[in-house]
């Protein structure tokens, strides 16, 4: 006789599905890095009322060599890396650059975008094109 699924069984199944999804994404990412020989850097996006703040970890990169492009709602970062990164495989494949293509949920203001580079981390502040309007409270 089949036992009815408990709530804990369902939670475990969901956790297992999430794990599989994450594993699938990490595998695809790694395959893409191996075939393109270009690394997707670690990055973080924070959304504020008027802007997005994006940080991108680019160890081994010189500031002068970072190419940053902002277009509509897209952000592109490319940088050659001064270290040869050995992609952890049984056979050696070296990657020597970083490439990040990021799509933000709304249009951004390319002209007002500011960026700085410190200790291997690129920090980009991208104002939103459509800013909110302050409403006077009576």
């Amino acid at each position: 006789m089949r036992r009815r699924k408990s709530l804990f069984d369902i939670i475990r199944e969901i956790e297992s599905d999430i794990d599989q999804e994450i594993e699938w994404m990490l595998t695809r990412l790694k395959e893409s890095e191996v075939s393109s020989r270009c690394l997707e850097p670690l990055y973080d996006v924070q959304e504020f009322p008027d802007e997005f703040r994006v940080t991108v970890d680019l160890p081994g990169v010189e500031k002068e060599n970072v190419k940053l492009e902002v277009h509509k709602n897209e952000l592109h970062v490319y940088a050659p890396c001064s270290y040869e990164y050995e992609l952890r495989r049984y056979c050696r494949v070296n990657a020597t650059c970083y490439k990040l293509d990021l799509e933000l949920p709304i249009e951004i203001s390319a002209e007002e975008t500011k960026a700085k580079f410190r200790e291997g981390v690129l920090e980009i502040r991208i104002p939103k094109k459509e800013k909110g309007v302050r409403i006077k409270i009576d």
Partner: protein
Amino acid sequence: MNKDKNFLIDGKIKGKGVPLIEGLPDVGLVGTIASSYFISNLQSELVGYLEIEDLPPIVTIQGSKVLEPCRLYLCRDGPNETCMVFSDVPVPPQSIWSTANSILEIGQTINSTIISVGGIPEPNRLEIEKPEIYVVSNDEEIQRKALETGYSTQFENGFITGMKAALLRNASRLGVKVLVALAQSHMNYPDPGAAAEVVVFLNKLLGLNVSVDPLREQAEKLKIQLRDLMRRTTASMARIPKGLELEATPQYIR
């Protein structure tokens, strides 16, 4: 391995009374970087392993040797000895309690004080040149010694989540002394700078003499090498309320 236990340790370290340092993958991989740095820079010997529940079949191959992903090392620096718990993979969130209990049991078996090192997320990490180390313990004496090093500040209010929280919560029940030392760190990027501060703190606390300069010099290279582990750790941390570590505890009117 004893059927009831998830670890196996060499008989010679039982009751040895040496400190046990836990640096499993967490915020900024601070504990992982610091513990691996000690393992590589001290005279180290593999003395056991820990089986992480719910981990799919994984082995680490190092120099053609087959190893368990979560291992225990005995590290010697002259007369000073320490044990290090180290893992090549993050602990799945659902296995944190059982892994913490195994570490506490190892602590009991060795008769150790457990020093759990890691990072605490600091959104303004880029503005901070020298990260602070915050310490908290279930034992006043250990806490006092940690503060006397002059390299740490008392963790007064806030939340700790994940492995460190599980160790602190269950330690007193098992009669094990635990000190948690957390350096201000990037959350999702490997942070060798924060790990270097932890190494300096542990040097002072445990009377070790490991030069931290090579770690600082190799920081950029290390960050590249650890990006895959960081990515996996970030995915794993997403299921722990790490955001709580940025919040203040509720204050109530007396």
